[in-house]
């Protein structure tokens, strides 16, 4: 409760008000009833009670009674009272003074409380909002520490106790100067063990120079919060303590939430990994066995019927072996890439370079398979260098172009274009085939998803998943859009981030 900072001043003002009332009423004495004057003094008492609190109000009523008696009650200028009825007036004035000051005190303390609550809510809200934006335990702890220190107007430390640590003296308190004092450590042990605040301003270890509040989550205690107000006069005011406790509870809840979210994510990854293993196994068993069967068959007939086979059949068989083993090589490479993408083992070595080169490698490598298609490359001459891992982006081009070749009729067009869009380069590989069915724009990027009607011979359904992993590893995004006039347009972004490349040295013309 905010007391008047200088009580003497309040008394002085109260005395002044009584003097003023007397001075105003004195000239009008002949015209006023004594009861009117009493009302005016009462007014003064009420005013003082509401402005300056109880002490001043009592003083005012005493002074008013004295002045009233002395100046306005005959005989004038003596404290003698002839009519006993005036004592009733005095009594009423005193009672009113006491009553009024109590009421105003109440109102004032309620306002105080409301303001404090509002401040606490504001502090809670501020922390809550920021907590929602940070990921990871360390950042959350740092953020909570900052808010607690602000609320305590001093220093704060959030000490988490590991899962394996015992509560009774086994906790490793952090190396922080707040924990240097033995009584703070004792308070921390107690607070953590009992789940109740301890230290400064509490009933336990109150001689400690800091307040220790336990971090209480729904199922367990996570640790403690230690705060020490800047002006360490051996006390922390209750309002501040309540704010600190509320913040601690909220921080505990957020930490607990993050903990479970992490566990949940871990479990999800495990399930996902298991699913991947199963899918790879089934893919291996089918997609690898099929070419192996052809290879074995072709090779054995080459071996056993060598003399009887006409040349062209022999040639055919050898070609089968070659083609099928190439297909297997691609498949195995895709599976390996897939695992690397999925397990986060994709090492990206970025280098600033023209996009043209990675695209060129892909185009040449797919020359045979794109023979029946017209591939149109549209790279503007002023396209900036992009920071990419050439081997990976080349793989993205290969997969997208391969898809385009697979899903369009011979003779159709494939267009590769790129343009700068703000802080990124957008690349598009567009075809004029069937396009991606509406609603399947996301599904096509999932593992082992083959286009409708496609059989196993077209691939394992990993190409786009790998693309997405590679583009994501570059900080970009990949998606598919319907192309105007039919067909699919796969687009991906390559952000132009990182330290820009050193400028090229000047180069003189050779004549």
């Amino acid at each position: 409760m905010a007391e008047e900072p200088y009580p003497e001043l309040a008394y002085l003002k109260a005395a002044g008000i009584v003097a003023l009332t007397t001075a105003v009423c004195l000239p009008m004495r002949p015209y006023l009833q004594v009861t009117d004057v009493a009302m005016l003094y009462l007014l003064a008492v009420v005013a003082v009670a509401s402005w300056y609190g109880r002490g001043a109000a009592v003083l005012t009523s005493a002074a008013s009674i004295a002045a009233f008696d002395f100046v306005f009650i005959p005989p004038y200028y003596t404290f003698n009272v002839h009519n006993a009825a005036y004592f009733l007036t005095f009594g009423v004035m005193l009672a009113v003074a006491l009553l009024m000051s109590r009421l105003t005190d109440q109102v004032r303390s309620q306002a105080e409380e409301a303001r404090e609550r509002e401040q606490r809510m504001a502090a809670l809200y501020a922390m809550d909002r920021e907590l929602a934006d940070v990921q990871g335990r360390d950042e959350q702890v740092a953020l909570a520490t900052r808010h607690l220190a602000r609320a305590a107007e001093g220093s704060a430390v959030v000490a988490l106790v590991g899962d394996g640590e015992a509560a009774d003296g086994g906790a490793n308190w952090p190396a922080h100067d707040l924990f240097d004092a033995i009584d703070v450590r004792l308070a921390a042990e107690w607070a953590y063990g009992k789940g109740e605040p301890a230290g400064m301003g509490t009933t336990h270890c109150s001689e400690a120079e800091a307040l220790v509040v336990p971090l209480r989550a729904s199922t367990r205690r996570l640790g403690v919060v230690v705060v020490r107000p800047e002006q360490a006069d051996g006390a922390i005011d209750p309002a501040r303590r309540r704010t600190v406790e509320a913040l601690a509870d909220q921080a505990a809840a957020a930490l607990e939430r993050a903990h479970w979210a992490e566990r949940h994510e871990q479990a999800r990854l495990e399930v996902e990994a298991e699913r991947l293993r199963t899918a790879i196994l089934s893919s291996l068993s089918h997609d690898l066995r099929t070419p192996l069967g052809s290879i074995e068959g072709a090779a054995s007939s080459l071996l056993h019927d060598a003399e009887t086979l006409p040349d062209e059949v022999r040639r055919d068989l050898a070609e089968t072996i070659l083609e099928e083993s190439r297909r297997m090589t691609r498949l195995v490479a895709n599976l390996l890439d897939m695992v690397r993408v999925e397990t986060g083992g994709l090492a990206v070595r970025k280098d600033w370079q023209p996009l043209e080169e990675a695209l060129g490698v892909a185009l040449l490598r797919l020359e045979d398979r794109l023979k029946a298609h017209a591939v149109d490359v549209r790279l503007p001459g002023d396209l900036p260098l992009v920071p990419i891992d050439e081997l990976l982006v080349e793989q993205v081009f290969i997969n997208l172009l391969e898809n385009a070749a697979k899903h369009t009729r011979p003779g159709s067009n494939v267009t590769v274009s790129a343009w700068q869009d703000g802080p990124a380069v957008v690349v598009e590989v567009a075809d004029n085939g069937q396009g991606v069915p509406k609603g399947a724009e996301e599904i096509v990027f999932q593992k082992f998803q083959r286009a409708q009607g496609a059989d196993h011979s077209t691939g394992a359904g990993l190409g786009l998943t790998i693309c997405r992993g590679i583009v994501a590893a570059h900080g970009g995004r990949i998606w598919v859009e319907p192309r105007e006039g039919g067909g699919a347009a796969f687009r991906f972004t390559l952000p132009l981030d990182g330290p820009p490349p050193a400028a090229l040295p000047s180069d003189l013309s050779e004549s």
Partner: protein
Amino acid sequence: MPAALPLVLLIEDEPHMRRFVTATLRAHDYHVVEAGTARDGLAQAAGRNPDLILLDLGLPDADGLEVTRAIRRSATTPIIVLSARGREHDKVSALDLGADDYLIKPFGVPELLARMRVALRRAAVPAGAPPQSCFELGGLRVDLVRRQVVRAGQEIHLTRTEYKLLATLVRHAGQVVTHRQLLHEVWGANYVEHTHYLRVYMAQLRHKLEDDPTRPRMLATEPGVGYRLRDEPS
């Protein structure tokens, strides 16, 4: 066995791979000796004095890079490194250590033979002999003496750096040259990390010399490794 047959040392631990390569090379008139370990390989390299070494980087008893280094300490025998896909860094290290070329497994026979021809041809030039002064492929003619580049009968004007880069590739025609080697030769030792210089100039060269710079026929990219000026039509 006529003495004229070139002797190839194949250092490879995988017996099936050895069988395939040996059979192929014998069919193409090479004499082959095999080694299944790095130890044996180094001993044969010193004892048999082969004309060419095919070295698998994934040997059981030693790092292929170590083998490259050990061979290079005493001999300039051309080395072609055989490596698995995805080990780009190893290949680059081997090339920077002095290996002449590389092949990624699985590789085809024509590829293997082409690489071997280039390596043997280069090794046949006696040390100190003046480098080949002229390069010709398709419509392109580079004359290193007259510093002249002609494409389809038209003289092409190159900047100083472009010419230097092209001349370096011509001196290693048919052979892969790593980014590092090119940067070192064209820009100098302080610029070996500035790969983007190289890529930008390579793009410029392609725009001046190739019919379709997005599908380069002569100035080939060796992804993650470097460049190769083809000396045979692909």
